[in-house]
């Protein structure tokens, strides 16, 4: 490279970085807009990740996070060795995999049906009603479950008895926890979940349907060959997102639904972390348990995303 070219390149680079700084300066007010957001993410999102190192220490409140002794993977090993480990893993996975296999398709089917409903007015009524449970809080949702499934006064048992059956003490049966958890999730969330797929269906080119009608395709065939392929990318993306949450079964609902009699199925990782960590103050141990959960989620998300990119071209990143 000649001397002249090198000089030109250097000058070019200098002006590029000069222009960049000029852009930063000109937009200084935009950075002011961002100060609270950045501060929030650094303090409340990234600092806790840094604080996760207590999972590798033996945390003592008197010594603080940084003064406590390093213990390597001891907390993790202790967790894997506890009698609870496999039970917790099974309970957590049963709910999330159940949700992924049973709950996941429901909003898709609802959206496909709603989209084909001839009466727009009735469609609106159905939508308004089925979205509503989304706004019920978890506390109230679980309260409703307890009232409805109560052995003596619940309406469900009244129906069972009226049909000639024996009343079931739902909240005291370990076997009933998972169906109740997943069933109530569907009741509360399936309607709301269909909004996304309705949006995807609305963006399908109507000419496709018109052409299919000319070709003599009936509604069912059009749903099968136009609607479903049309929303498939959205379905795949949602599936990836959900598989990244397989271990992250929410604390709130499971904790509220727990009774001393169903604990063998209702104790999940999140409730275990809460009890061990905050109620028993075993901070390092439960931070390790929590970290185990998040790392598995991250790995699953990345893996499913990778597979999906290879197989279907739809991916998050």
């Amino acid at each position, binding site marked *: 490279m000649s001397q002249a070219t090198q000089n030109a390149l250097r000058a070019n680079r200098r002006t590029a970085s000069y222009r*960049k700084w000029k*852009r930063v300066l000109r*937009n200084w*007010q*935009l950075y*002011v*807009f961002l100060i609270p957001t*950045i501060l*929030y993410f650094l*303090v*409340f*999102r990234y*600092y*806790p*990740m840094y*604080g*996760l190192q*207590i999972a590798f220490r033996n945390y003592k409140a008197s010594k603080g*996070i940084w003064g406590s002794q390093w213990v390597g993977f001891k907390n993790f090993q202790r967790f894997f060795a506890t009698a609870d480990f496999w039970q917790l893993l099974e309970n957590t996975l049963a709910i999330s995999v159940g949700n992924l296999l049973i709950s996941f398709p429901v909003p898709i089917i*609802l959206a496909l*049906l*709603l989209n084909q409903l001839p009466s727009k007015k*009735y469609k609106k009524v*159905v939508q*308004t*009603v089925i*979205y*509503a449970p989304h*706004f*019920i*809080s*978890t*506390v109230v949702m*679980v*309260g*409703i479950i*307890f*009232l409805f499934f109560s052995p003596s*006064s619940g*309406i469900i048992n009244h129906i069972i008895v009226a049909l000639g059956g024996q009343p079931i003490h739902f909240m005291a049966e370990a076997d009933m926890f998972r169906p109740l958890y997943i069933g109530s999730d569907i*009741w509360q969330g399936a309607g709301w979940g269909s909004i*996304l797929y309705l*949006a995807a269906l609305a963006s399908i080119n109507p000419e496709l349907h018109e052409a299919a*009608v000319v070709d003599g395709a*009936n*509604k069912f065939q059009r749903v099968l060959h136009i609607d479903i392929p049309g929303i498939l990318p959205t379905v795949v*993306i949602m599936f990836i997102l959900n598989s*990244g949450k397989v271990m992250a079964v929410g*604390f709130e609902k499971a904790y509220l639904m727990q009774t001393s009699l169903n604990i063998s199925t209702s104790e999940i990782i999140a409730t275990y972390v*809460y009890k061990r*960590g*905050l109620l028993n103050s075993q*901070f390092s141990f*439960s*931070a390790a348990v*929590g*970290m185990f959960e*998040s790392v598995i*989620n*991250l790995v699953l998300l990345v893996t499913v995303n990778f597979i999906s990119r290879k197989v279907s071209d739809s991916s998050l990143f």
Partner: protein
Amino acid sequence: MKAENKISLSRADRLFDIFNYTILTIVLLIVAYPLYFIVIASVSDPIAVYAGKVMFWPSSFTWEGYQRILEYESFFTGYRNTLIYTVIGTLVNVVITIPGAYALSRKDLVGRNVMMMMVTFTMIFNGGLIPTYLLVLKLNLYNSMWALILPVAVSAWNLIVARTFFQQTIPDELLEAATLDGCSNFQFFMQVVLPLSKSIVAVMVLFYAVNHWNGYFNALIYLKSPDKYPLQLVLRNILFENSLGDMVEDASTLAAQQRMGDLIKYGVIMASSLPLLILYPFLQRYFIQGVMIGAVKG
């Protein structure tokens, strides 16, 4: 098109429609009936509810459940606290999220990609409960209202939704023209962007407010004094801990107490959920708009 459809509506199509109406009507009933049942159970004599006589219509109509709730002070303290937390919390959320999201939507912002990656990463990985809890203790937020507000001051998802909105609705030409007129970024945001963005502000207010109204986990772990408890925590105590105490103690037998307890439970479910359930149909389009912008990004 419509007329044509009618003529060519084949047997298969008609069958499909009948099937569709049937399924969706069943779905409608499955969702609506429990909500309706709570309404009628909250105003029926609990003896009738226990006997399974309340199915489609209230039986031996009574306001007693609601009357007892009116006398229950914690319920009102909870209601008041939740109102305060929701208003202040949502205000903090929106004041931080909207300008931040606007700045991140600007293509000429140096460092934008790095910041977006930083935000997105928090959606797939986080420090978890324990480190966050220790942080809240360290910041002296324990047992303070701010423990319910600051740790959830920005939602990464909402930030991305708002940013996507700005990218889609504020044309670059508008900014160019304003800059030529000597308009600063701040003036442009206040005078041009905000008036064009009322709907995204509404979406953000609603999304954040619902979370504050319905949240109980942060209150459970960060609040100690019962007089600071938000509605959901008070509700939890009423619905699960059977801490009804003097609300039912005048009833003669345990069974009567339990019946009265159930009546009160149906009543508090109504009293706490009704504001949202009544408001929501009127605000439905904003909620849906928010979900749809999120879907574009999805």
